[in-house]
């Protein structure tokens, strides 16, 4: 859409149509429609949490973590840790809980203690087990935390949308 596409009118009205503005807005409408399609597509894909783009899985030494790379402020998210047989402890930095509020842990840990700047959750698992941390993002922005699951260590990088 260009200025020349608007039909010229030789009128007698005391009226300033500001053609440039109409053309500008009409162009913006195209951009807006394109943006709506892109945002809807990315949202379905998980850019704002919940889709394949967001779901991240890492595994090492029989342990694994599954988490959402993208989260939304005030919207609960789940960090899932799979413990290997024979080692039932998960360590999470204290700082992580400053950015995400821990709502619940399923199953409940047998013991929980603070060791240095980390929280240690002990499950005393004899076999392989899955632990789910239900977390509530408290502040927008990027965050990174080193989470220990059994003998393995994972770097969890997440981004919280406002």
């Amino acid at each position: 859409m260009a200025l020349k596409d608007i039909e010229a009118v030789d009128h007698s009205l005391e009226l300033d149509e500001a053609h440039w503005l109409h053309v500008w807005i009409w162009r913006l409408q195209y951009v807006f429609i394109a943006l709506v399609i892109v945002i809807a597509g990315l949202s379905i894909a998980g850019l704002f949490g919940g889709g394949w783009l967001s779901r991240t899985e890492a595994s090492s030494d029989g342990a694994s973590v599954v988490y959402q790379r993208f989260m939304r402020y005030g919207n609960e998210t789940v960090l899932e840790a799979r413990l290997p047989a024979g080692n039932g402890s998960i360590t999470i930095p204290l700082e992580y809980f400053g950015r995400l509020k821990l709502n619940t842990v399923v199953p409940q840990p047998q013991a929980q203690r603070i060791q240095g700047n980390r929280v240690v959750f002990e499950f005393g698992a004899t076999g392989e087990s899955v632990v789910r941390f239900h977390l509530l993002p408290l502040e927008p922005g990027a965050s990174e935390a080193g989470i220990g699951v059994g003998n393995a260590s994972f770097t969890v990088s997440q981004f919280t949308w406002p």
Partner: protein
Amino acid sequence: MDPVFRAIAVYFFLMLVFRILGKRSLSQITSFDFLLLLIVGEATQQALLGDDYSITNAVLVIIVLVGVDYLLAMIKEHSRRIERIVEGAPLIVIADGKVLETRIKRAGLDEDDVMKAARLKHGLERIEQIKYAIQERDGKVSIIPYGK
């Protein structure tokens, strides 16, 4: 600080969306458009207040919204260009009884919309009786019939 930024962000986002969507949305609201506006209002409320339902937060949000609106009105008074950008400009869609196809289409109108205004305001029967039809800044259609 949070409610202040929230209110400012929501204000300008809504202004941008409704400005881009066109004037038709403001002047000819269908029952579904009305329903959509209610849903937008509900979503906006969440974005504005978050999980803070205190009177202080509500008062802050209202003050900021009214303040930004007042400030923008003052800026518009001093700058015609900004006034045009925010409020829009009128557009002639029919001239000398002829429909200007590109204009009327881009304005989100059709001949029926114009004829409705022509019938209501001047009792006109045909497009040829219209000298000018103008979509005004507020989205309404003004009709100037021949002989005026």
